[in-house]
């Protein structure tokens, strides 16, 4: 079939600038393009051609950043390509559905939802209803995202279909895997972590993601455990140019800790797996209703025990007690201290959780599985 995948106006595909949606599309394309003739419509980037065929996929790149401008570009593209696609798969922009439908009357439209773009602030209710009517299927990245859509628009229920995202399990590997042992040693040596138990956080340094709660949990943990270190992999720590109030706040807190708080600054998406390999325990401290953070899959593939929060879709990929623990009250730093202590004080449990994480990643969260699920919706 001839398939058009329409990305968002924010970041380019392939995911040269990162981004969860872009990573998702990049991850499944090699498998999807094996079976179908695929065109990816997305935004331009100085490092990418405006129109190219790469790995059997045609990429067309148009101006973006501002939604209305991007929408104009999408419309123009479809005007120039009438009746060219059997399926049009739109990512996370329900507001593109009606304009697309007006130009592609015969195509089947599939919508993938990665967050709350059906919320009343983001789309008028009457338009949302028409969108739900027009699309054949709505794929969501977690049950939580689906529940939220259903709560607002019960008529969407029969069209919803959760397809969890995935991870490259050959790139994200446990630190004790032969391919990663040296990397683990090197990272730990470079950052003075050789004898430490490394707690890892990866994500935006913003209030939503709760890194401040982790720092505030450290004094409690320091009473029980020696040689702890907290590593924060987040892009906006170092750059003087963009120090946000939140980063300033957690820097101020970190400075007064007995436990070292290591901050990496921006880590290129290609190198992020090295930090997972260097860590011993992964924590997602989100305090907001998060769709389902990608970091869970990456931590699983890296064979780490996971502490996450009962917010949004995050707990859906954790089997409590098997590959991690779920913090129900993430506003409170003591809750993190308690969950982390529980894992750190039982080495057998900690090891088992890490192994289970890796097993889950390999059996359930490879890109092949994600692509197969998408194919079954298409076909």
């Amino acid at each position, binding site marked *: 079939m001839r398939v058009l995948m329409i990305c968002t106006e924010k970041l380019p595909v392939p995911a040269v600038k990162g981004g969860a949606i872009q990573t998702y599309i990049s991850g499944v394309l090699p498998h999807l393009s094996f079976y179908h003739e695929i065109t990816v419509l997305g935004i331009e980037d100085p490092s990418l051609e405006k129109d190219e065929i790469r790995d059997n996929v045609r990429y067309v790149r148009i101006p973006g*950043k501002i939604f209305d*401008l991007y929408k104009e570009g999408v419309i123009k593209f479809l005007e120039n390509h009438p009746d060219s696609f059997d399926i049009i798969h739109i990512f996370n922009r329900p507001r593109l559905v009606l304009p697309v439908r007006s130009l592609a009357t015969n195509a089947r439209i599939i919508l993938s939802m990665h967050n709350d773009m059906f919320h009343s602030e983001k789309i008028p209710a009457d338009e949302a209803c028409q969108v739900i009517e027009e699309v054949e299927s709505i794929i969501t990245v977690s049950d939580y995202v689906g529940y939220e859509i259903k709560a607002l628009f019960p008529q969407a229920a029969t069209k919803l279909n959760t397809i969890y995202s995935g991870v490259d399990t050959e790139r994200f590997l446990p630190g004790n895997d032969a391919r990663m042992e040296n990397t683990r040693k090197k990272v730990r040596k470079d950052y003075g972590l050789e004898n430490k138990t490394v707690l890892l956080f990866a994500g935006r340094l913003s209030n939503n993601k709760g890194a401040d709660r982790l720092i505030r949990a450290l004094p409690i943990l320091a009473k029980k455990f020696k040689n702890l270190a907290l590593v924060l992999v987040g892009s906006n720590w170092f750059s*003087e*140019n963009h120090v946000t*109030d939140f980063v300033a*706040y957690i*820097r*101020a807190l970190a400075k*007064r800790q007995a436990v070292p708080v290591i901050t990496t600054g921006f880590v290129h998406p290609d190198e992020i797996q090295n930090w997972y390999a260097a860590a011993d325990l992964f924590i997602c401290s989100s305090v907001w209703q998060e769709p389902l953070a990608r970091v869970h899959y990456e931590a699983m593939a890296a064979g780490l025990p996971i502490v996450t929060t009962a917010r949004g879709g995050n707990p859906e990929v954790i089997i409590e007690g098997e590959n991690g623990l779920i913090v129900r009250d993430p506003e409170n730093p003591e809750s993190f201290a308690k969950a982390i202590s529980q894992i750190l004080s039982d080495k057998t449990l900690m090891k088992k959780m890490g192994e289970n994480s890796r097993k889950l990643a390999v059996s359930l969260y490879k890109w092949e599985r994600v692509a197969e699920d998408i194919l079954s919706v298409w076909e």
Partner: protein
Amino acid sequence: MKSLEILPWAADETELMRDDLYVPEYIQYIALAVLKQYDFSVRCMNVVATKPKKGGAIWKVETSEGPKSLKLLHRRPGRSIFSLGAQEYLCDVKKARVPPIVKTKDGQKCVLAGGKIWFVAEWIDSLTPAPPDLEGAKQLCYGLGEFHRLSKNYQAPLNAEIASRVRKWEKTYQKMLMKMDWFRNIAKAYNDMPASEPLLQAVELFEPHAKAALEKLQNSPYRKLLQYEDSHWGLVHQDYGWSNGQLGKGGVWIIDLDGVSYDLPVRDLRKLISGIMLDSLNWNTDWLRELIRAYHEANPLSKELYEMLMIEFSLPNEFYRNVKELGYNPELFLNESTAAMIEQIIQQDKTKWPALKEIANDWKDVKTSK
């Protein structure tokens, strides 16, 4: 033009950084290239203001066509296009007292260079600050009202990133409340510093004020006001005061419009008046009334907007504004003089509540919003 990307230069490790008017050489080159696109010749140019942490600058340029200002706007291009569109609308359509934009040879109102928006405007030479007394303050309030009235119904160009705070009031109030907790946690972590104890006391006092203001907002006509399009309310300046509102030909001129955004207009008015009250060391009912009246003459306040103004006043703005940068360098900030400053704000706050109570019902006979 080379495709260099302009970045903030506050982190440049150079001696030149001691100079407030330092701008990196590559940006000076871009500035010259930008000026070549205009139909005048440049006699000389001097940097008059910079934002090194954000990457913005203003030059005064003497040209064959008289003095101009050249501005490098630090915001994202789409955002800058929103504010430039506003400046053009206010000047050309509404004949407001804002500096006219000078067009390029191609008739464009701005130039994109180094990934940022640049533009040239007329340099308004004869501006003087309003006198620092009640009369001057009233002139500023009146001028602000005019600005708000004239900016109503501004429609941004298609390629602009719409700047609106109209629907973000709850978030803003929640943010202040959240930061009260940050202040507390920092004060506890730095409990050996002179200002940490006064800071903790102030948080205990002001956090309930922030909470009460949020509750008032949630039970106010705010939601009803949201039924209008954002442009109905016009633009707030966001940084209006004695320097960005000055007296000139015809009345108050308003400059530096780069941060304009749709919002309920009382946000600007609250900032202006609360700053004046802070400077005058206590809240004076007569002044409050006169300032609000002066504004009302230029841009009549409905009953609902007056209520919104009262809610805005009830936030601990004066405390928040003065300590919100705390996290950036607590060891420097939490010193004796900050302790004294916090002490003073606490004292001043005691005069705020009786004054607000006295004027709370002033608008009860005014008509409601259309």
